């Protein structure tokens, strides 16, 4: 199905099932520990051996020699595959660093061997017997030092944000020089780790020249093609299966070493092998969100109208890596006649920087929305009013392009009202609650809505059960449930008459999960397949499909009503289709909007920061399931709070690695860090996005929330920290005298 005209009325608009806050249909499996994740598939193949991955102990250089003799002699060892014995393997889609093979080390903890043994304990013990002789080389590890030589580069996050190295509208420098009020500050954001709870893991089994990988991957079709390329075998000889993914956040968009090494190890051992990256390996072996240095300049008239805005970002990456697209939202979020955005990239020899939840916007809004807070104060304007004054209904770089639907102002005003923003004291450091300095902060949220081709197969059987198959993944996003809701709505059956099977490369190719494109795209694909199935049902029953009504488990036309299952009495009916998106998303800008409001307390003596209240108001088209969508938003708010207050991969700039590479050293928010969170969805639809009229919401929650936290800390203390995260050491020296 081609989607190239705005959606009219369709069966989804009935909202009998779609749009309801339904409990997740996979909930009973996840809560009982019976949902099978990659490393746990004891049932799929017998005789699984254990692979243990070794990572390089240097950041850059060469492996001169590896001695595996003792390890090969160790009890239980079945095989060892080393990088020196393996020619450098091709990279998969979007891999900047090589995953395995050859003697060159590009980053710390790059995989250099996998040791296979009968048991995990034996594999681990034997891995420690491998000795490695390195020829280390000097590398570049310090972004601040390398930033001076960084060059402007185009870049794309692969998740809906990107652009040229430099983009201009009007005359920024001239307008900035003439602006009555100007603002110019530089900020830094830290390297961050996805730290999803399930480690990257794969079981690989060969059957002749065919290999099956039970793995944990967000994008099955990408992974499928990438593994075929990396292993040098035809795609039809590779199968991936990821029915449950224990979190990804972008860290599992692309094939990683666990999958490649499981396949190599299984071949070498002559039996199935399971490999999980150990937690201390993950942060340096896989990808991370790159640190940035960002400069924002704003020029405005005295009444707060922006006349000039510039946002420049510098980040680092390996030679084939991309820049962090942190300036992207600044092209679209606020009006202003004269504009400049620029991305620069420095060469660093740290582990690969790549997509992490809302790549670009998460660190970009962390900075832009603090800058807006600073500028509002300079103007003597309320931060909410300043944003409303500079709202735009068109793409500021191409004013002939309107937004398909944009209600940022609605989010801001409703949020301010519900949060009690009017009670905020604009003068910082003035509100006390016992030992706590209390402050409120807010920020706008913004994230583009991407649409990707997505397919599905639906089957109706004689019992009236509808089975949906698509290679879409559920990474915690609620895909199982919203896909079931879509099929139930389309076929007129209750939710328990729908079976959803996901994550298998044998199923039709879907959008996959990333860039908050999955929910809208994949359900639209299911919609397309269901339209075909409805036609097949009508034809089988001899009904004109235009007259057929699918409701209550029946097909009705005129005064005839037939149980749906009857259409499949003579054999199951199957339909397959994809949704393909035309140029609607080019003609009009599709984005999602929100407003974050946060209250914090800062201990007047110790500078300990506690988040006390959080509210997000989101405008993201039709919300397919308000319960799971709300969870996506609060999850983003939680991760964004981490970025604002604690998350930082500490770079050892001498040795070139992230020193705090586990979950004790790399701090993420825990229960005690997060208060009750509120989310309000504006009631809206966007017919330009898809027949579902929905947009993405999975990343909107993380966009801007960190800035709202930072602005609240400023309002509480009067201390403006511009190097994130805001750890208490950055506040202690300047705390107001505790009276």
């Amino acid at each position: 199905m081609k989607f190239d005209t705005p959606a009219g009325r369709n069966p989804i608009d009935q909202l009998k099932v779609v749009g309801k806050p339904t409990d997740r249909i996979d909930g009973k499996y996840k809560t009982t520990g019976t949902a099978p994740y990659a490393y746990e598939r004891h049932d799929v193949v017998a005789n699984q051996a254990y692979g243990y991955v070794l990572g390089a102990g240097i950041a850059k250089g060469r492996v001169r020699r590896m001695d595996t003799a003792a390890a090969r002699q160790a009890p239980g060892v079945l095989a060892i595959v080393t990088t020196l014995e393996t020619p450098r393997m091709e990279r998969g889609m979007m891999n900047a660093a090589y995953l395995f093979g050859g003697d060159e080390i590009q980053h710390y903890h790059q995989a250099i061997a996998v040791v296979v043994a009968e048991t995990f304990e034996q594999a681990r013990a034997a891995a420690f017997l491998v000795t490695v002789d390195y020829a280390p080389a000097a590398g570049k590890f310090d972004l601040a030092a390398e930033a001076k030589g960084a060059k402007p580069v185009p870049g794309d996050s692969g998740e809906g944000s990107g652009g040229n190295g430099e983009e201009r509208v009007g005359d920024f420098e001239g307008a900035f020089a003439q602006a009555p009020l100007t603002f110019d500050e530089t900020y830094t954001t830290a390297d961050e780790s996805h730290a999803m709870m399930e480690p990257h893991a794969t079981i690989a089994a060969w059957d002749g020249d065919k290999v099956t990988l039970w793995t944990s991957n967000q994008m099955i079709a990408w992974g499928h093609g990438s593994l075929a390329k990396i292993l040098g075998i035809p795609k039809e000889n590779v199968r991936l299966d990821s029915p449950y993914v224990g979190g990804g956040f972008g860290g599992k968009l692309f094939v990683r070493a666990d999958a490649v090494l499981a396949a190599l190890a299984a071949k070498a051992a002559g039996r199935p092998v399971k490999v999980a990256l150990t937690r201390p390996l993950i942060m340096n072996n896989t990808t991370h969100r790159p640190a940035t240095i960002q400069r924002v300049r704003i020029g405005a008239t005295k009444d707060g109208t922006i006349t000039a805005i510039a946002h420049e970002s510098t980040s680092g990456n390996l030679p084939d890596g991309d820049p962090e697209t942190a300036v992207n939202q600044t092209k679209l979020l606020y009006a202003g006649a004269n504009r400049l955005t620029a991305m620069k990239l420095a060469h660093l020899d740290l582990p690969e920087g790549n997509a992490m939840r809302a790549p670009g916007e998460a660190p970009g809004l962390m900075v832009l929305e603090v800058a807006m807070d600073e500028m509002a104060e300079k103007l003597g304007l309320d931060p909410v009013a300043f944003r409303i004054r500079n709202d735009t209904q068109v793409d500021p770089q191409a004013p002939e392009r309107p937004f398909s639907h944009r209600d940022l102002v609605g989010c801001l005003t409703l949020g301010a009202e519900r949060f009690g923003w009017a009670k905020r004291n604009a003068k910082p450091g003035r509100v006390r609650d016992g030992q706590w300095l209390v402050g409120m902060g807010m920020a706008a949220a913004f994230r583009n809505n991407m649409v990707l081709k997505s397919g599905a197969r639906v089957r109706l059987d004689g019992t009236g059960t509808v089975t949906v198959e698509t290679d879409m993944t559920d990474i915690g996003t609620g895909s199982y449930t919203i896909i079931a809701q879509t099929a139930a709505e389309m076929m007129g059956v209750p939710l328990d008459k729908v079976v959803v099977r996901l994550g298998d490369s044998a199923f039709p190719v879907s959008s996959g999960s990333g860039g908050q494109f999955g929910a809208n795209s994949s359900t639209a694909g299911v919609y397309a397949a269901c339209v075909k199935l409805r036609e097949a049902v009508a034809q089988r029953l001899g009904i004109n499909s235009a007259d057929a009504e699918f409701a209550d488990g029946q097909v009705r036309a005129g005064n005839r009503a037939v149980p749906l299952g009857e259409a499949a009495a003579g054999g199951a009916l199957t339909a397959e289709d994809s949704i393909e998106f035309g140029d609607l998303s080019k003609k009009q800008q599709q984005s999602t909007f929100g407003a974050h409001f946060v209250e914090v307390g800062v201990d007047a003596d110790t500078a300990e920061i506690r988040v006390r209240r959080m509210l997000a108001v989101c405008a993201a088209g039709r919300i397919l399931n308000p319960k799971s969508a709300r969870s996506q938003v609060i999850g983003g708010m939680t991760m964004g709070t981490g970025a604002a207050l604690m998350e930082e991969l500490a770079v050892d700039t001498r040795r070139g690695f992230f020193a705090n590479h586990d979950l004790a050293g790399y701090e993420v928010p825990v229960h005690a860090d997060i208060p009750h969170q509120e989310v309000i969805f504006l009631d809206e639809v966007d017919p330009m996005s898809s027949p579902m009229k929905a947009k993405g919401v999975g990343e909107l929650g993380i966009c801007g929330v960190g800035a709202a936290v930072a602005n609240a800390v400023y309002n509480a203390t009067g201390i403006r920290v511009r190097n994130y995260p805001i750890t208490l050491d950055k506040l202690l020296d300047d705390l107001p005298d505790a009276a």
Partner: protein
Amino acid sequence: MVGASAAAALAAAPNGARADVNPAGTDRPVMAKVSLTVNGQRRDLDLDTRTSLLDAAREHLHLTGSKKGCDHGQCGACTMIVDGRRINSCLTLAVMHQGSEITTIEGLGQPENLHPMQAAFIKHDGYQCGYCTPGQICSGVAVLAEIKAGIPSHVTADLDGPMEATPSEIRERMSGNICRCGAYSNIVEAMTEVAGKQA
């Protein structure tokens, strides 16, 4: 740890390839018999003594509900209830639990026979990807029992007074269970509901 070179010393983390050889690593594994009562059933195992309680469950008993998020006691995904107390099962060896009564997530309830805490997690959407969930639920059940038993926490203001499952008590006691999807707000609501029903 002493390495043969600076680079090797750097790699002394468990995953870095070490340059020094530990001859002890070539020894045959030491095996031991251990009997556990898991979810009410006696299970007799003959295990490599290096096997963690978590791996005994996941790899030997095929009870994969308990998750391995870090294998270092940093995330709580492996939480089991052992002899009435919740522990990180990755930080203890199976052979240390001869005769122990162990409850894993599979023992609390099953898909068609849910424990009230499991049902409350579903109702309040106290999870997303599901990987930390069994640990959260095992911890959640044990936390409410700890509060009922009057065991104080860091945030307990009155050590002698009646103890209640307030949001702040729940948040403090649950902070060893990381949820990267960020379902904390919903988990607290699920636990509060169960605590209310129990009271």
